[in-house]
């Protein structure tokens, strides 16, 4: 009896915390159908806020362009950091102990460092070498690759440590050249780690605000985060944003749930 009571208390508490975490999200989604930003259904149920996404003139255009840049940036940064990170991991694995330790420590820096400091340091760096790094996408892609690649490396490394080193040697003995052995034996074995590293890099880039804000320069490039910051920070939240945020919530939460459920079910299959 006492045990049951503990369980009921635990579940009640967990429910309360879940409510705290999801209530704001839930409220925004519900009232995105009210066409108002006053959290009341004074106009009844309506899709006006969603229509506003496409019919708000300059705001709609800006939003679309921000979405475009966000996706371009996330796609290029995640592809580049996945390629860079995959080869880096293979190389790091064979470095001698000391160099390996140093490289992995520096690799940790972007992950542990405060985002503001990382953003500022890149900004000063780009300003100092502005003749090499033109303002705009170049700087943004480089800075996103810089904070995404460490996560790629750390998601591939454990997989590589599990690999039987004889696999590579066997490929060589069977007449494969080193490059083919890497591409046809090592990389396929690392694939699960590479895929989850890529997914991680993509999400991180998509979600970033601080590093983009400092390094976007004044070429007019805005990502979703920086555009939201510019537009919605000062004014109160317009119905338009209720709809945009709702779409964002639903898309992100479903995507993340799906990715993670799939990952878990795969793990269970193996066990």
């Amino acid at each position, binding site marked *: 009896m006492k045990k049951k009571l503990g369980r009921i208390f635990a579940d009640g508490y967990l429910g309360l915390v879940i409510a*705290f975490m999801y209530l704001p999200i839930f409220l925004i989604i519900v009232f995105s159908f009210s066409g108002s*930003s006053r959290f009341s259904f004074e106009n009844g149920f309506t899709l006006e806020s969603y229509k506003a996404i496409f019919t708000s003139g300059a705001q709609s255009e800006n939003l679309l362009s921000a979405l475009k840049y966000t996706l371009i940036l996330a796609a290029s940064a995640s592809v580049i950091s996945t390629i860079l990170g995959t080869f880096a991991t293979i190389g790091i694995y*064979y470095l001698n102990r000391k160099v390996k330790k140093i490289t992995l420590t520096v690799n940790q820096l972007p992950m542990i460092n405060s985002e503001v400091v990382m953003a500022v340091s890149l900004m000063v760096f780009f300003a100092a070498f502005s003749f090499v790094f033109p303002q705009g996408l170049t700087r943004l892609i480089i800075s996103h690759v810089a904070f995404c690649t460490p996560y790629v490396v750390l998601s591939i490394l454990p997989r590589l440590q599990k690999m039987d080193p004889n696999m590579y040697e066997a490929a060589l003995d069977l007449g494969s050249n080193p490059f083919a052995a890497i591409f046809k034996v090592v990389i396929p074995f690392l694939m699960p780690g590479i895929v989850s590293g890529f997914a991680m890099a993509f999400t991180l880039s998509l979600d970033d605000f601080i590093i983009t804000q400092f390094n976007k320069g004044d070429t007019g490039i805005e990502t979703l*985060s920086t555009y939201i910051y510019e537009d919605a920070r000062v004014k109160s939240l317009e119905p338009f944003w209720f709809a945009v945020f709702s779409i*964002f919530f639903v898309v992100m939460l479903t995507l993340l749930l799906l990715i993670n459920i799939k990952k878990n079910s795969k793990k269970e299959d193996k066990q």
Partner: protein
Amino acid sequence: MTKPKLRFSRKAFAYPYMIFLLLFVVVPLVIVLINAFLGDEGKLTFDNFIEFFSDKGGGMTVLGNSLIIGLVTTLICLVIGYPVAYFLAKYHASNKVFVLLFILPMWVNFLIRTLSTKAIFIALDVKLGMGTVMFGMVYNYLPYMILPLHTTLVSIDHSYIEAAEDLGADRFTVFWKTIVPLSVSGIVSGITMTFIPAISTFAISEILSSSKIFLFGDAINMHFSKTTNSFGVGSVMSLVMLVLVIIANVLVSLTEKKEEVKSAL
């Protein structure tokens, strides 16, 4: 054309990334370091440090306030988050999706979540100020506290708990003398993952206090903006932040090492 005889070391695959890290992670930090010692005319000077530490521009006051707000945020997150992680590990460890629900919000853009809470506060006629900022901080950083706590609590070997019970410890003692000490590394890394971003973030305090409350991250941001353009003092502040990051991570690795030693015994 690659010949089968070609000799090359697989180490070489790491070189491009090592150069990349050097260029875009190490060198930028070195430039910040140099900037901290540069005066107006590019002369070597300690003025920036003097200006910051003498609190002329109010930088030290901001740092002090941020440390207090960060500390309170972290404490509240720990008090709310530890039971969550504990109950999840105790009753729901097998239900991965339920556990995931407590972590997921950290992947939804923090600006969107912060602006949503602001809209709700305005609709409820809540005055924006310290209270709303604290709410927003806890709301934002709670998942970062729960994640590492949960990871350590789930991995605790249940036989330790059973042993304590067999030796006559009541539930309260088991919790304080067995479970809490075994989860120290999770507690420390949870504190780091909350405290560091909490003191250095910008935007959360700005949005949820209508720019009335100003934290260390906002201050760094301000020093690097085009209008103020005081990179020197901003660089000193970044270095201070960097030192805090390093201290936090040394603490984390120390507690982890201790546990490794314990488990080796």
